[in-house]
């Protein structure tokens, strides 16, 4: 279990306890986090679950592989050094307290 917080650009926040093994795109859609769509179901084809990770947490969210790195080029809001596709971040106790920032497409 990990408590995850999503922070929106308008200052609002959503926090939820996420079961180990679920990815954070699934967790976001289940908890009604805006702007996280995850149309492809987490198979790295749509880039609609883009988040910015609180920098101090970045290393703990795991490695960005080549496909994710490429797909991050397709995001609506331009990627930054702390960008991840949240379908590739898997909930685990080490991520308890993780904060994600949700970019808002224009």
């Amino acid at each position, binding site marked *: 279990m990990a408590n995850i917080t999503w922070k929106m650009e308008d200052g609002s926040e959503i926090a939820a306890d996420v079961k180990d093994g*679920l990815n954070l795109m*699934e967790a976001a*859609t*289940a908890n*009604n986090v*805006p702007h996280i*769509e995850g*149309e*492809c*179901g987490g*198979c*790295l*084809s*749509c*880039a609609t679950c883009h988040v910015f990770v609180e920098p101090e947490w970045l290393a703990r969210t795991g490695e960005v592989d*080549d*496909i994710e790195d*490429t*797909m991050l*080029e*397709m995001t609506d809001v331009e990627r930054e050094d702390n960008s991840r596709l949240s379908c590739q971040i898997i909930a685990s106790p080490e991520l308890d307290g993780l904060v994600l920032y949700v970019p808002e497409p224009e």
Partner: protein
Amino acid sequence: MPAPVVIVGAGQAAASFISRHVALGNSEALLLIGEEPHPPYQRPPLSKKYLLGELERDRLFIRPRKWYADQGVETRFDTRIAEIRRVDKQVVTDNSEAIAYDKLILCTGSHARGLPAEIGGTLPGVYTLRSISDIDRMAPEFQAGRKLLIVGGGYIGLEAAAVARQLGLEVTLLEMAERILQRVAAAETSRYFRELHAGHGVDLRESAQMTRLLEDDGKVCGAQLESGEIVAADLVLVGIGGSPNTELALAAGLDCDNGVQVNATCQTSDPDIFAAGDCCNFSRGGQQIRLESVQNAADQGDLIARVLAGEDVSYTALPWFWSDQYDCKLQIVGLNLGHDHIALRPGASESSLSVWYYRGDQLLAIDAMNEPRSYAFGRKIIEAGKNPAPEIVADPATDLKALALG
């Protein structure tokens, strides 16, 4: 109380419509009606991870079951609509219950075509693949060592072949056309997947005409080919394409032609009725098309919510698709319909390749096999309306990112 917006069909398009409706803060009440007992779920994993047993059922659901009530959306699953009464603005369930609608959204999807009963299409042990219950019925038969016969070399058949090989079944795949994927892809894409499956031990036969399925002891036991050859099978999966579910729309007198016809705002010939997803037929670039894809269902559902909210929008989304087979990720962007030549771009590894489709100078679509850069940057290139010459994209030294962003 005013009548709600009623959504008939609980699939991807419905979920996407509801999500956008909720996100926009629209106040109109929603009622979602679905025939299956489940809330809207993702279908693509059915022929992949769900059949493989790697994904539990609840994770297929696009939103958790309780999410709908939490948003104030009324749901009625396990409910079949038998009729639309346009004059009264009602839908009628098969229990003769009339339900009023303000606007009606048809998200009725498509169904898998089967083989005729006369040639054994309804024998026990013969399956099609479209729903959770289809998989739950066939999955216990997917046991190592058993013989699976797949009829049809489209994406669903190929994905099921990959899962079956991973589970240790013996797989024969019959394609009646000259090559697998003939209707949807270039010969080079067909060749890529033919070699992929042959390399994983699938007995893949093209130009194979099947005359009938054979029965033994009340169950399917194989197929007879036109050549007289008999292919033995313990189970058969028929993957020969889908047809739109238009019965309700047809009976209600809505214009239909290979799907419920809709305009650029997904409105049918009745202004109070909209349609989205696999069931609808629309115009794109002067061609009438119908798409069976998550992207199309999701984007059309989303569009209808915006239209009902008063936004001035029309449907122009760029199609995209994907398929996973063994360790190959296929990503497709665009529609290759009407292409007259292609360019091949080799990828970084032996197993990566992209096929770029052109009509004249215009770049239409890309099939990217283990080649996400061609997909991601190709998508940007098409979206930007750029048309790089075939020899440029075929040159592995060309930097696609520079081409996309330059």
